[in-house]
C-alpha cells in the first residue's frame, strides 16, 4: 500500500474513525507490514499521550438543575414576539392595499358650475372633445363632456363628420 494512502488510514484508525470492516482489513495489512505497524503504534502512542495531556485532573462538580423559570420567560417572550410579527405583517398588508387602491384611482376633477368665469374662459378654446388634441383624461375633455359641449364649426373651418372618440389608430400622445 502506498504511504500516502496508508498514513491517513492509520490516523483514522488511531482516532477511532474506521468502520469495523475497514479496521479489520487494515489490521491484516499491519500484521504483514512491520514498518506500517510501527507507524500505527506511533500514532496510537501520540493519541494516548495527547488525551492524557488534555485530561482534567479533578472531576468537575455536577451541573446545576435546569432553570425552568428562565425557559418559561423565554417561551413567553417568543410567543409575544410572534404575535407582534403577525400584527405587523397584517398592518403592512393593509397599508399596502390602501396605497395600491389610492394609486389605481385617478384624482377627482373639479367641474366648475355653469356660467362661471372659468367656463367662459373655455369659450375661446377648442371645445371639441373628439377632435381635440387633449388627452383622454385631460381637464378640457372632461369638462366638455360633462357640460355637453358639441363641436363648434368656425367659418374658416370645414365641417367634418362625427368621429368616434376612440379612433382606432390614434397617434396622439396623451399628456396625462
Amino acid at each position, binding site marked *: 500500500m502506498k504511504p500516502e494512502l496508508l498514513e491517513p488510514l492509520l490516523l483514522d484508525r488511531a*482516532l477511532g474513525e474506521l468502520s469495523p470492516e475497514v479496521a479489520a482489513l487494515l489490521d491484516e495489512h499491519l500484521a504483514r507490514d512491520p514498518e506500517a505497524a510501527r507507524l500505527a503504534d*506511533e500514532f496510537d502512542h501520540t493519541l494516548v499521550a495527547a488525551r492524557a495531556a*488534555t485530561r482534567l485532573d*479533578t472531576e468537575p462538580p455536577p451541573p446545576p438543575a435546569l432553570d425552568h423559570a428562565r*425557559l418559561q420567560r423565554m*417561551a413567553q417572550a417568543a410567543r409575544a414576539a410572534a404575535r407582534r410579527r403577525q400584527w405587523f405583517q397584517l398592518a403592512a398588508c393593509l397599508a399596502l392595499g390602501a396605497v395600491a387602491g389610492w394609486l389605481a384611482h385617478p384624482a377627482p376633477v373639479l367641474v366648475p358650475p355653469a356660467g362661471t368665469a372659468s367656463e367662459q374662459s373655455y369659450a375661446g378654446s377648442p371645445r371639441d372633445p373628439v377632435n381635440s388634441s387633449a388627452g383622454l383624461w385631460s381637464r378640457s375633455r372632461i369638462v366638455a363632456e360633462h357640460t355637453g359641449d358639441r363641436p363648434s364649426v368656425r367659418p374658416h373651418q370645414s365641417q367634418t363628420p362625427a368621429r368616434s372618440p376612440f379612433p382606432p389608430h390614434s397617434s396622439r400622445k396623451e399628456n396625462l
Partner: protein
Amino acid sequence: MDDAVAQLETLYRDHSRALLVYFRRQRVLAPNAEDLLQDTFVRALRNIGRLRGAVSPRAYLFGIARHVSLDALRLPAPAEPLLREPDAPTHPPEDARLEPLRDAIARLPDAQRETLLLKLQHDLSYEEIAEVLAIPIGTVRSRLHHAVLQLRSSLNPECSHHET
C-alpha cells in the same frame, strides 16, 4: 411546550455535564460556565424543531454551546482563543513528560487545536465535530490529521527527520 421542556430535561440530564466541562475548560468563561450552560439550553428550546431533527443531539448542543462561547467572548474582555488550555495545575512527577506535549498543543493553529480538543476531551466523531463547527467532514479529518502529525513530531523529532 411541556413536551419540549420534557425533552429538554432528558437532553440536559444526558449532556449537561459534558457541556459544563466544555465551558469550564475555557479560562475566560469558566467563572460563568453554569450561566452559559443555561443559555445553551434556552437557545436549544428556541429551535426545538431542529434539535428534534438533528442526527446527533449532542453535536447540535455542542454547536449551540460553541456559539454561546463566541458571543460571550465578544463581550468586553481580553481576547482569548476558544478552548485554550486552562492554567496547568500541579502534575505528579511522572506527568512532567506531558509538558512538551501540552506546549505543542498550545502552539497548534486555533482551528486545529479546537478540532483536536473536541475529539480528545469530548470524544466527538468526525460527523459531530463537523456539525459543531459547521465545516465539511473532510476539513475535520484534515485538521485532525495535521494536528496529530504535529504532535507526533514534537514527541519524536527524529522520526519526522527520517521521513522528510
